[in-house]
């Protein structure tokens, strides 16, 4: 049933209201209180510790800007925030195309929010088609409240009217609470082209619903449009106010997500911004890349600021060249890095082998997307793990690590550079589209001068020292950098001896292979065992890596509240593996991984214990620990939801028997 507006039509039953307002399944202090609004209408206020709202429109209608401002303001107010973009596949698809849905999805929390959460509780839609598509994708909570522009209902084009009726019927039957909003009508009071105003009007509505600090919102708008003429800001302020007023006059509910302001300095950004800033903070000075979604924006964010540092972004002719340029630069000085995603990683494969063979430090960031092949360019997956580890023909020992939060996207760059230089090693950092596009606040990092290590060591090479003077124990050796007197030698991808001379003798190849491999063992010996989240023994241990950490731990929390003996373990290093895993696994009746990559499900036709293809981390852990590690993985082109993982935990709990 539907609340027709502006003419305040049919009122819904208390029942209906309740349904519409308790629009979340999550653990929450779902206290509902009632206050009275301006016109004396009853205003129902839902107080919850988290709530998810999304704004969807055709691309170009500014829903994203609206969402970004809303997210930033909420963060400033001290809410936990996790924002993700809703992006269409095409740059600018035709209007009112389902798949053209574009916008932002913001999860608000009282506590810091570590993941995008479950389904959406409240939607602001600029047309019914994108709204309907979100429903079709299963993105919306069964009891979500949907606010939708209603100009289409009465549009001149009858086909459009028909589309409206069809879509709305569907949504209605789905049992959502639907509120029509005369966005265009309202905006036209202030601007001539409503398309350019709706987003700010909608922002006003959200400001009222979520009780945001209006001044903060106004400031944020001013900042967002600082480069534009002042009139723009003024108009937007007016639209904002209009939205607030409209909401106050017409809505009968609000949502309170009590903020917990902290003293700590915070910054808010997405994972690609964190990678970009982390790279600068790490003192790296050359980034070679070739554009590829979802990695490209790292270079956009490096933008001017990198050059201000004396850094260079080189957009190469292809990914192979990007790797080559980065390798050449690393060879000649400070470690450089290259940024890419699956298809680009594939192209860099040969150069990665050369990096390992020549022991030139190199940092590669792979912002994973859906695969194989072009796959799902804008969607998240964790399917490059094995390719990153084993993709290079021949034996190519190197480091693979994965940040598990936006903050770690920043810090991992510092770690990566340090390891690369200390060990003369290739380091692959696996981020993904979930981190890349997720926006969340984290404590402002403190710069450490250490990170910007001084220029490369060009001091004369001691008489007789050789370019690969491997320490027989550790495999470490001093890197000879061009410019260092007496260090002349020729680097080669051919098998070579300590003097970098091409060598075919068997023992030399065996020894040099040993030395390159040894460095990993040495690095491993410096790592600490990972910490178990939850009790460090129990019935079920859920192991994850990368961007799924927040969702897994939230799911574990929920399951533990139900009394399930489940804990989780998150790995940062995939090569070498952190110590102690086997020992930790043995403390649990059952061990499983949860990953965003493909695995066969037991019970499917033809799938047996013997031929089942496992999740990528699960496969590694089985070989590594010989523990019968099970897995639940999905390639849904979206981050995993804590709710889904929670259910999986229930299903996978070992039945009966004691540890």
């Amino acid at each position: 049933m539907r609340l027709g507006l502006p003419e305040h039509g049919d009122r819904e039953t208390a029942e209906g209201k309740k349904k519409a307002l308790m629009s979340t399944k999550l653990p929450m202090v779902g206290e509902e209180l009632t206050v009275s609004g301006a016109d004396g209408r009853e205003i129902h206020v839902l107080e919850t510790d988290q709530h998810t709202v999304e704004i969807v429109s055709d691309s170009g209608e500014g829903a994203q800007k609206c969402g970004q401002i809303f997210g930033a303001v909420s963060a400033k107010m001290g809410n936990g925030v996790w924002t993700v973009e809703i992006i269409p596949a095409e740059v600018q698809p035709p209007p009112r195309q389902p798949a053209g849905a574009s916008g932002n999805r913001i999860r608000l929390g009282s506590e810091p929010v570590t993941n995008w959460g479950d389904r959406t509780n409240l939607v602001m839609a600029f047309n019914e088609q994108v709204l309907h598509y979100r429903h079709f994708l299963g993105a919306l909570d069964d009891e979500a409240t949907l606010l939708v522009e209603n100009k289409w209902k009465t549009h001149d084009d009858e086909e459009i009217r028909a589309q409206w009726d069809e879509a709305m019927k569907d949504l209605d039957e789905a049992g959502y609470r639907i509120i029509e909003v005369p966005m265009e009508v309202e905006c036209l009071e202030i601007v001539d082209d409503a398309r350019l105003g709706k987003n700010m009007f909608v922002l006003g509505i959200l400001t009222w619903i979520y009780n945001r600090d209006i001044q903060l919102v106004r400031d944020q708008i001013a900042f967002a449009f600082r480069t534009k003429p002042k009139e723009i800001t003024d108009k937007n302020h007016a639209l904002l106010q209009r939205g607030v007023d409209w909401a106050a006059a017409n809505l009968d509910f609000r949502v309170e997500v009590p903020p917990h302001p902290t003293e700590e300095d915070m910054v808010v950004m997405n994972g690609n911004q964190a990678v970009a800033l982390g790279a600068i903070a790490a003192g790296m000075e050359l980034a070679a890349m070739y554009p590829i979604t979802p990695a490209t924006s790292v270079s956009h964010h490096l933008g001017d600021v990198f050059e201000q540092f004396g850094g260079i972004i080189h957009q190469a002719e292809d990914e192979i060249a990007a790797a080559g340029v980065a390798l050449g630069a690393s060879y000649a000085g400070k470690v450089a890095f290259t940024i890419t995603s699956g298809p680009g990683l594939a192209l860099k494969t040969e150069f990665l082998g050369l990096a390992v063979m020549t022991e030139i430090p190199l940092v590669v960031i792979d912002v994973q997307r859906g695969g194989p092949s072009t796959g799902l360019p804008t969607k998240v997956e964790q399917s490059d793990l094995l390719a990153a580890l084993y993709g290079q023909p021949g034996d190519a020992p190197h480091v693979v690590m994965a940040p598990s939060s936006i903050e770690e996207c920043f810090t991992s760059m510092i770690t990566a550079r340090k390891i690369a230089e200390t060990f003369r090693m290739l380091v692959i950092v696996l981020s993904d589209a979930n981190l890349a596009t997720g926006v969340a606040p984290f404590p402002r990092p403190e710069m450490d001068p250490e990170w910007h290590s001084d220029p490369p060591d060009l001091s004369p090479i001691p008489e007789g020292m050789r370019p690969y003077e491997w320490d027989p124990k550790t495999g470490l050796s001093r890197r000879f950098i061009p410019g260092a007197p007496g260090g002349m030698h020729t680097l080669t991808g051919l098998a070579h001896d300590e003097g970098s001379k091409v060598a075919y003798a068997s023992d030399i190849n065996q020894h040099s292979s040993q030395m390159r491999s040894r460095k990993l063992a040495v690095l491993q010996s410096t790592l600490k065992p990972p910490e178990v989240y939850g009790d460090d023994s129990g019935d079920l241990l859920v192991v994850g890596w990368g961007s799924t950490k927040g969702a897994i731990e939230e799911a574990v929390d929920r399951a533990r509240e139900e009394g399930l003996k489940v804990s989780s373990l998150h790995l940062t290093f995939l090569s070498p593996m952190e110590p102690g895993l086997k020992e930790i696994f043995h403390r649990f009746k059952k061990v499983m991984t949860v990953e965003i990559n493909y695995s066969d499900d037991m019970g499917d036709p033809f799938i047996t214990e013997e031929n089942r293809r496992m999740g990528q981390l699960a496969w590694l852990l089985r070989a590594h620990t010989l523990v019968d590690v099970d897995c639940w993985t999905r390639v849904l082109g979206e981050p995993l939801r804590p709710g889904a993982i929670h259910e999986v935990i229930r299903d996978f709990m070992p039945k009966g028997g004691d540890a």
Partner: protein
Amino acid sequence: MSTACSLVQLDHDDAHEFSMGDYEGAMARWCPGCGDHAVLTAMQKLLAHAQLKPEETVFVSGIGCSSRFPHYINTYGFHGIHGRALPISTGIKLHRPDLKVFVVMGDGDCTSIGAGHWIHAIRYNVDMVALLLDNNIYGLTKKQTSPTTPQGYKSNTQPQGSFLPPLNPVEATLGVTNASFVAQTAEWVPAHLYETLKQAYDHRGFSFVRILQRCPHFTADIFENAVRNPDALEFMVHDDGIDLPDLRKIYKQTLVHDPSDLDEARRLAEPSEMQRLGVFFRDDNRPIYEETRHLPHHTVNEKIAIMEKELDRYAV
């Protein structure tokens, strides 16, 4: 690479005088009579002439007989992977413009697997010298057709003879916007080879030199006539190009060509019965990629200050 060059002249006084011998690396393992030997010698002569510090000079190559070059010369060397010498060198120059970089490639290395990088390296016009040692064949892998193999010439992969007319590296290079130095020489005319390398080195920007190179082992016949018969070569001469009076004694075929004339250069580059040697084109004023990026230098503290300012933009 005059800037680089003059640099050396400056801080050189202190250092000792480098002789050709100072640039000798491992003993060259090319076949007897291989044209690569001559290129190596000419290059060592050039280094000695320019008094390049071995530690400030880098030779980068791909894979192939010719790409063994860096092993045989006593500077820093990077024997890379097949077809990728140019991206590596570009990275070196971008990060370390102070280094003098020479690139040595075979015809397969540069014009086949490396073609994409080649086209773009010409365009970037990074200040370095690129040598194409063109023996019209895949040598190291034992006689497969290369893009420059003469049409009809038999190889192990095209036993019926190469199907297509050969790619002309000079013509192709001249077709790329921002080309700034394009020359052709022959390894068996040492004086011309040396002078060409010298001018390539003196040029500011990407100097592309195609060197006709004998491969007695697999394609002895291809350059036979050009080597035996002086009239099979035609020398392009000009004050802004190469003009070696002594050569005229042996080589009668010369024509005057002004390297600043691109149209004429392209015309002359087209296939003809005679192999044309000399500078086809030169333009010292084309944008040089690494110079378009003027990079400030900062102390660590300055850097941290900038960083903090940047972080402010993300501050909550």
